[in-house]
């Protein structure tokens, strides 16, 4: 049975081996670490559902937050992603994509849909406002660094941002990230390189100050 993503598209070819590289590039099938949980979920095992959520929810919320800049929207995306997962779980068959790859792909597509809708209605980035509670010393500096980095990330074109979020923050291997984005590895590398170059430009003027904040 073909595995389809949230948009009904068939999830494409599978990763080839490679350590982080390799770990992330495992074929789905019986080696998929989520498969035992999915089988138990199909049998109505609530504990398995909770285990699957605890395994993936944090990463999916993090992905949504970095793509959308809003915790509320990130949690909406996570909820929609898992709703689709619950629809798929009873009929999940090994042999296609790893479940985690599929989950990331659904989440990324949902984020891109939201960003597209923002553009269509002319909304600016709907990110959370910076927290204004005071933090002393180093904590304050670290928060300032984080906010500047997050702001720079939000300025990247969407697909460059997605590539960096998947590879750097979600720690997917290049083959798996390319599969999530339905592009080739070379195209992924191009997005990553352009994205990192843009980030370097955006943070260049503040680099010394930021690095000082991290020392």
């Amino acid at each position, binding site marked *: 049975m073909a595995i389809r993503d949230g948009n009904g598209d068939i999830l494409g070819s599978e990763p080839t081996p490679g350590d982080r*590289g390799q770990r992330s590039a495992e074929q789905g099938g019986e080696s998929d670490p989520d498969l035992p949980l999915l089988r138990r979920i*199909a049998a*109505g095992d609530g504990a398995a559902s909770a285990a699957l959520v605890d395994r993936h929810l*944090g990463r999916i919320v993090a992905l949504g*937050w970095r793509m959308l800049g809003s915790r509320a929207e990130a949690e909406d995306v*996570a*909820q929609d992603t898992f709703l689709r997962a619950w629809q798929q779980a009873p009929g999940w068959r090994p042999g296609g994509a790893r479940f985690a790859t599929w989950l990331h792909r659904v989440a990324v597509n949902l984020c891109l849909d939201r960003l597209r809708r923002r553009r269509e209605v002319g909304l600016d980035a709907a990110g959370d406002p910076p927290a204004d509670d005071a933090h002393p010393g180093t904590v304050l500096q670290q928060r300032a660094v984080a906010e500047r980095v997050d702001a720079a990330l939000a300025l990247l074109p969407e697909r460059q941002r997605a590539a960096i979020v998947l590879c750097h923050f979600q720690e997917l291997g290049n083959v798996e990230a390319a599969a999530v984005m339905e592009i080739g590895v070379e195209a992924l590398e191009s997005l990553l390189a352009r994205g990192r170059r843009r980030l370097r430009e955006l*943070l260049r003027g503040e680099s010394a100050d930021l690095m000082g904040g991290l020392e």
Partner: protein
Amino acid sequence: MSERERHGRPMPIDRFAAILDAYGAEPPRWPTAERAAAQSLLAVSPEAQALHASAARLDRLLTASVAPAPSAAVRAAILQAAPRGIQAPPSGAVETLRGLWQALLGTLTGELGGWRPAGAALGVALLLGVAAGGTVGTQSSGTRSTTAAEESVDFVQLALFDDAYAEF
């Protein structure tokens, strides 16, 4: 050049720079097939080391970004929607309904000379009637919009132990 051809040859500095541009300074993020060659070049080339240091600075900045943890509310909402097997009905309800069902079947099949399909159909009809009658006047003032017929089907499914996920 294939990965096999690339293996064992010194990595050109341009390719090393391209890897750093895309994947950053941490070797575990580098493409598997090229990692050993890249690390070999890094060990001996001052130019590669300078490029690596620059990439590491950006990596370090990115590490400052910390995503929020999911709220308990979103976790609960997701689990609320999770697939469920046969739900455990209230204690005693199953035995009561099963007993009623068996009694009806026994009566009907005995009286109809073992013509079970027709007896079962008649039993279902009787159950529907009983359940529908029992719900009249109780649903209209409630917040649920469930009809008497739907409620009756629920009763019959419970009695028959229908698997709600059999259609998946």
